[in-house]
C-alpha cells in the first residue's frame, strides 16, 4: 500500500485512500445491504457542529466555516451544515461534542456517509489571544476512532523570531490551529489507518483498547474537565492507544442508569469493558485549573490533575499519579519558554502521563509474560 501511495501525491493520494475505503466498504457480500456506501457518497463526511467550551459565543461561527473549507481542501465533500442541522433537530441530538451509537447510525443512514468529524472549541479568547480546538474522526460503521488530535495556540507561544511576526487576532491563531490539526489528520490518514475501516465491527487493532471515564472537576473552573477529557483522548490516540469514542461509552453507561465521573463502580466498569472489549480505563479529577497573573511572569496557567488507570476487566487500579504543572515551569531564561496557554500545558502534562502509562503497561506486561513463561 505504501508503494502505491508513493506513486501519488497530494490530493490524489487522498482520493486513492478514499477509493480504497470505498472498496473496503463495498467489497464484501454483506455490504450490498444496509451498510453499503455508494460511489457518490464515499467521500462524504458528516461534520457535527463543534461543542463550544470557550467563553465566546461567536467562536463557533468563526471556526465552523473554516473547518468546512479545510475538509473540502482535503478532497472530501462535507455534508452541508444545513442538512446536518436538520438531521440533528429531527433526532433531537443536542450534545454534538460526542455521539452515541444510535445517533451515529441515524446520521449515517440519513446522510449516506460513515465518517463523522466531531470535536470541540476548547479555548477561544479574543482578549487573551488563545485558541484551542480538539477534533476526532469516527467511523460510524464500526464505532472506531480513526483519528483524534488537539491543538492549541496562544500569542506568546507562536514561534516568531524576535517577535517579528506579531499575532493580532484570534482568527489568525485559529487558522494556525486548524492548519496543524488538518496536517495531523492528513498524516495519520496516510499512515495506514485505513485498516480501521472495515465493514465488520470486529476489532482488528492490536493496540491496547482504552476507555475514558469523564474526569471529575473539583477545580471550580467551568469546562476544565471536558477540556482534560479531550486532550487526554488525543494524547492517548497519538501514542498508539485504541481509544473508545466517549459518546459510545456514555451512551452505554446511561443505559445502566449511571453517569460515572472521576470514579466508577466495578459492575459498570466490567460491563463497559466487556461491551467495548476494552483493556484499560482512564479516569481522574481536575483538582486545580487556573490562569493566574504571577509577579514578573505575566499570565501563566497552573493545572493539577489526579489520574488513575484501571484494569478494565478486573476493575483494579494499575497506576495512579498526582500531576501538577505551571506554565512558568518551562521558562528557560528571561520568561522565554513560558507556556501561556492552559491547553498547551495540559497537552504537555498529559503527554507525560500517557508516556508513564505506556512504560507502566510495558513493565506490567513483561512481568505477566515472565510469570506465564515460568509456569
Amino acid at each position, binding site marked *: 500500500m505504501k508503494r502505491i501511495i508513493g506513486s501519488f501525491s497530494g490530493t490524489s493520494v487522498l482520493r486513492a485512500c478514499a477509493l480504497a475505503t470505498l472498496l473496503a466498504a463495498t467489497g464484501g457480500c454483506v455490504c450490498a445491504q444496509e451498510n453499503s456506501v455508494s460511489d457518490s457518497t464515499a467521500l462524504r463526511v458528516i461534520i457535527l457542529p463543534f461543542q463550544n467550551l470557550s467563553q465566546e459565543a461567536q467562536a463557533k461561527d468563526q471556526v465552523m466555516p473554516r473547518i468546512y473549507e479545510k475538509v473540502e481542501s482535503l478532497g472530501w465533500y462535507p455534508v452541508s451544515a444545513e442538512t446536518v442541522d436538520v438531521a440533528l433537530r429531527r433526532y433531537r441530538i443536542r450534545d454534538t461534542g460526542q455521539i452515541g451509537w444510535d445517533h451515529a447510525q441515524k446520521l449515517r443512514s440519513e446522510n449516506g456517509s460513515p465518517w463523522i468529524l466531531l470535536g470541540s472549541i476548547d479555548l477561544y479568547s479574543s482578549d487573551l489571544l488563545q485558541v484551542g480546538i480538539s477534533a476526532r474522526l469516527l467511523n460510524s460503521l464500526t464505532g472506531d476512532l480513526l483519528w483524534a488530535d488537539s491543538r492549541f495556540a496562544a500569542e506568546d507561544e507562536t514561534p516568531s523570531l524576535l517577535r517579528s511576526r506579531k499575532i493580532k487576532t484570534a482568527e489568525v491563531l485559529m487558522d494556525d490551529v486548524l492548519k496543524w490539526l488538518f496536517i495531523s489528520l492528513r498524516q495519520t490518514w496516510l499512515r495506514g489507518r485505513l485498516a480501521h475501516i472495515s465493514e465488520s465491527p470486529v476489532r482488528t487493532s492490536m493496540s491496547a483498547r482504552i476507555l475514558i471515564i469523564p474526569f471529575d472537576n473539583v477545580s471550580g473552573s467551568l469546562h476544565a474537565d471536558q477540556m482534560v477529557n479531550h486532550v487526554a483522548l488525543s494524547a492517548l490516540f497519538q501514542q498508539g492507544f485504541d481509544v473508545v469514542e466517549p459518546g459510545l461509552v456514555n451512551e452505554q453507561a446511561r443505559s445502566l442508569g449511571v453517569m460515572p465521573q472521576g470514579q*466508577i463502580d466495578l459492575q459498570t466498569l466490567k460491563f463497559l469493558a466487556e461491551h467495548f472489549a476494552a483493556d484499560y480505563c482512564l479516569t481522574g*479529577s481536575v483538582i486545580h485549573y487556573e490562569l493566574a497573573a504571577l509577579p514578573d511572569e505575566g499570565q501563566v496557567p497552573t493545572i493539577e490533575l*489526579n489520574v488513575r488507570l*484501571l484494569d478494565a476487566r478486573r476493575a483494579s487500579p494499575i497506576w495512579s499519579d*498526582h500531576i501538577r504543572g505551571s506554565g512558568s515551569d518551562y521558562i528557560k531564561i528571561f520568561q522565554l519558554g513560558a507556556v501561556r496557554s492552559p491547553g498547551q500545558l495540559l497537552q504537555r502534562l498529559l503527554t507525560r502521563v500517557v508516556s508513564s502509562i505506556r512504560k507502566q503497561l510495558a513493565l506490567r506486561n513483561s512481568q505477566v509474560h515472565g510469570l506465564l513463561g515460568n509456569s
Partner: protein
Amino acid sequence: MTSKHRFSHILPLLAAAILIWGCSGPSVFLDRTYDFSYVEKVAVIPLENLSQSQNAGRQATLILNTELLASETFSLVEPGETAKVLGEIAARSPQYDLEQIKEIGRRLEAQALIIGTVSETSTLRSGGVTVPTVTVDLRMVETETGATVWAASATEGRPGLWATLFGLAGKSNSETLRDCIQDILKTLIK
C-alpha cells in the same frame, strides 16, 4: 558594621523562624496491639468537609486516594465502588454505627475504612505573603470490630521559613493539602 556583626543580628532571627517553622507535627494515635499486616485492602470514605472551601473535602479525598495508592502498602477499593456501596446502604454521614461499618467492610471486602474530615482551610497573611492553611483529621477503622486502630490530625501551611524571612510566595491550597495528607500518612506508613 562588620560582617560578623551583621550575622549576630540575623542568627537569632533565623533560629526563631526555624523554631516556629518546625513546630507542626501531627497528633497521632496508634493501637500498638493491632496487627496492621492483617489489613490488605482499605476503602476511603469521602472526607467530610467542615471548612469554608466548597471542594476541599473532594480534593482531600482524591489526594488521599492517590497517596495511598502511591505508598503501595494497601490495595485500595475503587472510589466509585465505595460510593456505590455507601449509596446503597444509605450511609452518607461519616458517623457510622458498628453495623454499618461491618456492612461496608463486607460489601467492599475491605479490612479497614479510612474516615476523616477537612476541618479547616483558610488563608493566613504573613507579611506580604498569603499562606493557605489546612487541617485534616484521618482515622482508620477496622471493619470487623469497628475499633479505631489509627488516628492522626495535622495542620499544614504555617508560614514557611522563606516566607517568614524573605516574604517569598508559599504553596498553593492543593499543595498544602497534599503536604498535610502526606504528613499524616507518614505516621501510619513508613
